[in-house]
């Protein structure tokens, strides 16, 4: 298992700094009494913490006065949220239709091999997390991948190594 901490028994005081945790409290405070607060709270909390392990979900559930089952249900429903730690760079491979018919799958297979991880996993050195997305709207340039916010288009399997080596 690759850097997939059993997040139920993760020690959040080791994983996150006190400042980070304080920010989460502030986020909860800010949205507390607004309707539909859960998703924005999760989004902002993930921005601060990068991932949302079970103890954090408990804090959010407590803070918003919601059942933990609802919070867990929402986190696992939307692919945007993650409960496992992430690498410094998130590589998102587009497997939308346009990229797919132009060879997106081959790109994906090559990246999996290059990084030696499966979908949703993070490399041992916590450099890269691999994800797939459906269409990021750059279909005209397919196949494309996202590395954090940078888009790389018109890719060929042979170019993968070069692209990834730019990130370190």
């Amino acid at each position, binding site marked *: 298992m690759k850097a997939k901490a059993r997040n139920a028994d993760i020690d959040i005081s080791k994983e996150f700094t006190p400042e980070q945790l304080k920010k989460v409290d502030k986020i909860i405070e800010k949205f507390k009494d607004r309707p539909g607060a859960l998703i924005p709270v999760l989004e902002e909390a993930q921005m601060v913490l990068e991932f949302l392990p079970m103890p954090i979900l408990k804090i959010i559930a407590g803070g918003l006065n919601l059942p933990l089952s609802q919070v867990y249900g929402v986190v696992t*429903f939307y692919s945007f949220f993650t409960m496992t730690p992430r690498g410094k760079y998130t590589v998102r491979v587009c497997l939308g*239709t346009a990229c797919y*018919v132009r060879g997106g799958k081959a790109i994906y297979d090559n990246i999996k091999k290059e990084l030696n991880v499966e979908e949703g996993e993070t490399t041992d050195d916590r450099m890269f997390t691999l994800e797939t997305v459906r*269409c990021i709207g750059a279909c*005209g340039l*397919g196949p494309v991948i996202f590395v954090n916010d940078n888009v790389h288009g018109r890719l060929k399997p042979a170019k993968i190594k070069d692209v990834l080596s730019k990130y370190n």
Partner: protein
Amino acid sequence: MINITVGMATCGVSAGAEKILDTLKGVAKGIPASDVAVAATGCIGMCYREPLVEVSDGKSTFLYADVTEEKAKKIFESHVKDKKSVDEWVIIKNHSEGPEFGYLGKQVKIVLRNCGVIDPDSLDEYLGKDGYKAIKKILAGVTPEQVVEQMIASGLRGRGGGGFSTGMKWKFASMSKGPKKYVICNADEGDPGAFMDRSVLEGDPHSVIEGMMICGYAIGASEGYIYCRAEYPMAVKRLQRSIAVLEEKGMLGDNIFGSKFSFRLKVKEGAGAFVCGEETALISSIEGKRGTPKVRPPYPAAKGLFGKPTNINNVETFANVPWIILNGPEKYAAYGTEKSKGTKVFAIAGKASKAGLVEVPMGISINEIVNEICGGIRGGKKFKGVQMGGPSGGCIPASLADTKIDYEEITKLGAIMGSGGMIVVDEDTCMVELARFFLAFTQNESCGKCTSCRIGTLRMLEILERIVAGKGTEEDIPMLQELAQYIGKASSCGLGTTAPNPVLTTLKYFKDEYLAHIRDHVCPAHSCAALVKFIINPETCTGCTLCARDCPTKAISGERKQPHVVNESLCVKCGKCFTVCNFGAIYKD
């Protein structure tokens, strides 16, 4: 005065437009802004030639394609110093001639009227293009009922896929009683392989906002939400900036333009679930819950967001609205067919020579779009068909490509108009595999509420996986048809009821491909790895040894710098050699 604009939507930025903009701004430094202005603009629509730069010298405009930093400097120098264009790189001159003009010739731009023309971050530029004149005109003395009537008269139908009359929808919402109502813009753009809505949001956010304001006035709502995919960070930012500017100017908020009309807007980001594009699921998502669809009725017009009457429309639908109000419903309805009026934006992707954004009048044929506007198929391959409407839609074969773009005509063929994704496929695309791809998508995105959708699609997917692996049987085909029927009938929301469409249409038009996989263990498109032979072309193989080193079963042999060969009895058809080859020397047969 020379104006230089760089296409800076996601497509442009992915192709490197940011560097081009920086380069141009760099060389323009020191030159008075009254002489040369360098600015960003939205998607020009020609994604296949990005980065794109347009230069206007006051008399003429010149569009340059595939611009590099070097080229950008030359273009700048030539225009600014020598007052000349670099003719060999110009692809379109004055929006009316040049080698690439064919791409624009048949298009009619209503939704995309400002995309790639104005700087999307500049309110002034939108105002300069008659922006916010439609809402002003209405507030100055058109009643809400009259607005609804005009929308009905225009014949505009929802561009999000369903094709319901926009005017009628507004009428229902306006008839619902209650002091609190909502307007929602559906910017979830779920079809994987479609990017019309993104381009409009990135290139002309104000037209969508103005459309929403007009809707708010017509139905009596003072609050609106734009539900935008989180995968579109640039669109989200531009919307937020535009809203902030409008609030600052008092154009959003209380008593807009001195009238009694008040309207506020918020942007909500989605979180990556296809089903959230379905209106009731979307509403649940804004409320902070899991996005599971609800049974309709009640429709949102009666009981929507937070239980209040709500009108929900797609991005493209809203972008049409200001134009219709300003130019009159008759002018809009003059385009199109009897029941499908106006224009439709299509995102063309896949194997077309020119992939990008096109806006065409309804009633044009698929052939005209693929062959005349988009220049046919890349690499001279054979046009096999188009997939319209994404995972809920269907495939239309090339033999029926004379069909007109019209809601009813397309539905007759078993496909749907959809939101505008059009994937062009050629002889190298396996239709069984394409159907499998879409079903894998819907299977994965099923919210799990209905058994038929959750489990039925999985059973269909298993059958398709068997077929592409060469292990299908003749009974599989009636079984697929039977399952499709049950799923279509027994699921509650559109995701489930339409999920079988890609399978049903490929079975209808490309049954021989299914049979070839099942009976002859052959993939006619040479695409399904399990059913092809990998062969190395001795002419193009350079003997670099890369494939031999990567082959997991050591099935490839050969001396360094000599052509290699694949030993068929050892090959497990993993396709690795095919993907790693840098010289395209390995082909599938």
